[in-house]
């Protein structure tokens, strides 16, 4: 190609490069939207035409019994997750200590509590009096198990201790994800083991721990409904109590479903905020460029 030819080609290409741009057609996306909307309409129409008494739904949505159930569900979620996080973190730390006995205790715990269905665990705690009629310190304190093992305590222990086994594994994974160099740096400035864990390892493990624990939190909201089986007056139990009397099953289940969705929506947004908080130092922040301050090299 001659020099002129080359220049001409370059010129043409410059024109092409400046052409107006058009996005790919979004027909597929439109088609998807149509299907999705059609499906939604089908479901909504079904609910409207179906044998649902919407005024009953409205009547019970803010009723005291439902509200009490909602409060108990939320409060039990926090209680059980509190137990799960404290016990689970403890088990994870036991797992990584050099103490072989503690390691095995932790392994056994996880094996045991992860291996039994939650509902069964609730029944076990609730009926603990069948094995240990009294609890306490021999000769000092003794109480009748049946008096203290209320539905509330049985639910908190049953759900909390079981979830702790899962939390333990997540926390352990988080701890392992922190670079060993961080531990060495902390030790090299004279930190004690407890300080290394609390100030260096766990805060950085949080980034890995928070998303799955957030999921557990959301699961726990729904898991509390299992406690209806041992008469703990959480939301499902309370709406069941109502529909056993008035027979409005679907209406009251819709009321419960509505509140579960509200609670979970709130928790999801809180989870996002907590994740952002613990990601500090890992997300690159844009800093203004400054002229480099070069030093003479010694070599």
């Amino acid at each position, binding site marked *: 190609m001659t020099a002129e030819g080359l220049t001409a080609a370059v010129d043409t290409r410059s024109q092409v490069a400046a052409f107006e741009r058009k996005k790919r057609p979004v027909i597929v996306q439109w088609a998807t939207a149509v299907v999705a909307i059609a499906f939604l309409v089908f479901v909504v129409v079904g609910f409207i035409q179906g044998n649902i008494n919407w005024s009953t739904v409205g009547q019970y949505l803010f009723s005291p019994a439902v509200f009490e159930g909602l409060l108990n569900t939320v409060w039990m979620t926090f209680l059980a997750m509190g137990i799960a996080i404290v016990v689970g973190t403890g088990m994870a730390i036991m797992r990584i200590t050099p103490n072989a006995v503690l390691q095995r205790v932790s392994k056994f715990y996880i094996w045991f509590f992860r291996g039994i269905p939650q509902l069964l665990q609730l029944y076990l705690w609730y009926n603990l009096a069948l094995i240990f009629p009294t609890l306490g310190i021999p000769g000092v304190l003794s109480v009748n198990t049946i008096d203290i093992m209320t539905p509330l305590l049985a639910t908190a222990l049953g759900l909390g201790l079981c979830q702790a086994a899962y939390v333990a594994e997540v926390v352990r994974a988080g701890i392992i994800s922190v670079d060993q160099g961080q531990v*060495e740096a902390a030790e090299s400035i*004279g*930190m004690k083991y407890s300080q290394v864990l609390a100030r260096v390892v766990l805060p950085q493990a949080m980034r890995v721990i928070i998303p799955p624990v957030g999921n557990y939190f959301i699961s726990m909201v729904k898991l509390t409904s299992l406690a209806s089986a041992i008469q703990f007056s959480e939301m499902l139990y309370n709406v069941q109590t109502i529909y056993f009397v008035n027979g409005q099953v679907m209406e009251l289940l819709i009321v419960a479903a509505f509140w579960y969705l509200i609670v979970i929506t709130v928790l999801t947004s809180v989870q996002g905020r907590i994740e952002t908080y613990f990601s*500090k130092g890992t997300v690159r922040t844009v800093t203004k460029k400054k002229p480099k301050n070069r030093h003479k*090299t*010694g070599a």
Partner: protein
Amino acid sequence: MRESNDYIVDARNITKDFGDFRALDDVSLQVKQGEVVCILGPSGSGKSTLLRCLNHLERPNEGAVWIDNDLIGYKEENGVLRELSSAALAKQRTKLAMVFQRFNLFGHRTALENVTEGPVQVLGVSQAEAKRKALELLKRVGLSDKAKNYPNALSGGQQQRVAIARALSMEPTVMLFDEPTSALDPELVGEVLHVMKSLAQSGMTMVVVTHEIGFAREVADRIVFMDEGKVVLDDTVTEVLNSTNPRARDFLDAVL
């Protein structure tokens, strides 16, 4: 009882095994107040392991280390060495500051917080006092303007200089440098060596594992050359760099 002596670092007959591999074989090292000792040697020669034995990040299988006449990690009692608690060992470590090859800055803390962490948490200095001192130290390493940055917003050279400031914040008796420039891009090596040089000139006792022969030549009082877990040479800079020892010669000719 061993009498006290003038050595700030006194490592005697250190042997360290990793499984079947003998990383250190009967190594001794003495460093006086204000001395700068560079440890050279091919990779796998045990340089870093020796350094890590000094502050007990690695526990030697045999031998013992005294820092400023403190027996590290043990208590001497009726002819036996009793292991110290981890808390007591942590206290001893405050005399030894270490700078790592991979910086190991606390990733969840700003440059300033990295430097105040030790004084506040370990030495019990007040937050305000620690901050004042930390800003001074950051100025000393030329990073006053980066105090609020997280480590991931700093270059390797800047991170290593913060790490040096963090080490200095503990007012250590000795500073240990474990290949402090090996993980840096070539154009960033100079700024770190510059800081280390000014530290040496200020009279800091330093043990430096390095491949920077230029730094060793300019700053070191002594060079220790190691190979296969043993100290081959321990002499003045001139003597070591001009040594006719075949193993040292091979290494030096390759890196010079």
